């Protein structure tokens, strides 16, 4: 019964991550890679690599933007890296803020870049918190049956309804699972 409650919690968490645009379809691709005969713990591994990578890059960016003369080429290279890894794991909001950040780099707008870094950091921290919660819950959920195919079907339906009805947080379908 505890596993069922945790499963529902995980479903709700993942659903809200997709619904809010925090993650996109690419994250689902990773889960499918794991489920289709992949290595157990693959998603956890990739998420952990991403978080470590993003942490490092954000620190490097902060240091670069503190310099009296900012090397915008280096800043751009780091932001490009972070944008790439965000896209690869499906971290949609982080990816979008990186795209805006790159435009500010190209205009050599220091104040704009500092603000963009704050946005990227905030989006990343939000996502990281959700990932950490997810990774804490998953081992317990996987002790019982977790039908990801059913779950992804529900998430897709919710996305469709979001577009049609503009509902802010449509987790109502999950009550039927």
């Amino acid at each position: 019964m505890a596993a069922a409650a945790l499963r529902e919690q995980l479903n709700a968490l993942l659903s809200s991550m997709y619904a809010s645009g925090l993650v996109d379809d690419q994250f689902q691709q990773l889960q499918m890679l794991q489920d289709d005969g992949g290595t157990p713990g693959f998603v956890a591994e990739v998420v952990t690599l991403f978080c470590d990578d993003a942490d490092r890059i954000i620190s490097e960016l902060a240091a670069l933007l503190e310099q009296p003369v900012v090397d915008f080429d280096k800043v751009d290279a780091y932001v490009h890296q972070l944008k790439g890894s965000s896209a690869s794991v499906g971290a949609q909001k982080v990816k979008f803020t990186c795209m805006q950040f790159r435009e500010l780099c190209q205009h050599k707008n220091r104040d704009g870049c500092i603000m963009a870094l704050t946005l990227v950091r905030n989006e990343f921290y939000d996502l990281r918190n959700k990932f950490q919660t997810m990774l804490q819950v998953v081992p317990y959920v996987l002790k019982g049956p977790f039908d990801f195919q059913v779950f992804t079907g529900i998430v897709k339906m919710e996305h469709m309804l979001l577009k049609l009805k503009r509902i802010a947080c449509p987790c109502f379908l999950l009550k039927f699972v």
Partner: protein
Amino acid sequence: MASIVGGAVVAAAAGGGGVGVGATPHVLAVDDSSVDRAIIAAILRSSRFRVTAVDSGKRALELLGKEPDVSMIITDYWMPEMTGYELLQKVKESSNLKQIPVVIMSSENVQTRISRCLEEGAEDFLVKPVRASDVSRVFSRVLR
């Protein structure tokens, strides 16, 4: 199953066979991003390839000098020190390596970049994030 050999991650395919009949094809994946290396290695393993993933063009050339059985190279375009394009050039310039098909990956869909790589002899150019269906399509064609 995976092991780390001299900075490279070597992952065995989950089962025998591969795209073609006979020995499991050995694919060398090159990407400076640890995230993308893990993902491309998983995609290749799911297609039943034997995978070695390295983090630079330099390491790729070192490995190619030691391992005679690499069937295919898939490399990121934008890497520090040696780009995927430069790696492609070195492979195609080498009498020992030029027959190995090379696929380039990039997060940027730049037509001039794509054309340049194809003209240099790349088999295909995949825009990231790369999906299992992209790999299956390209590798089936190239390794047939």
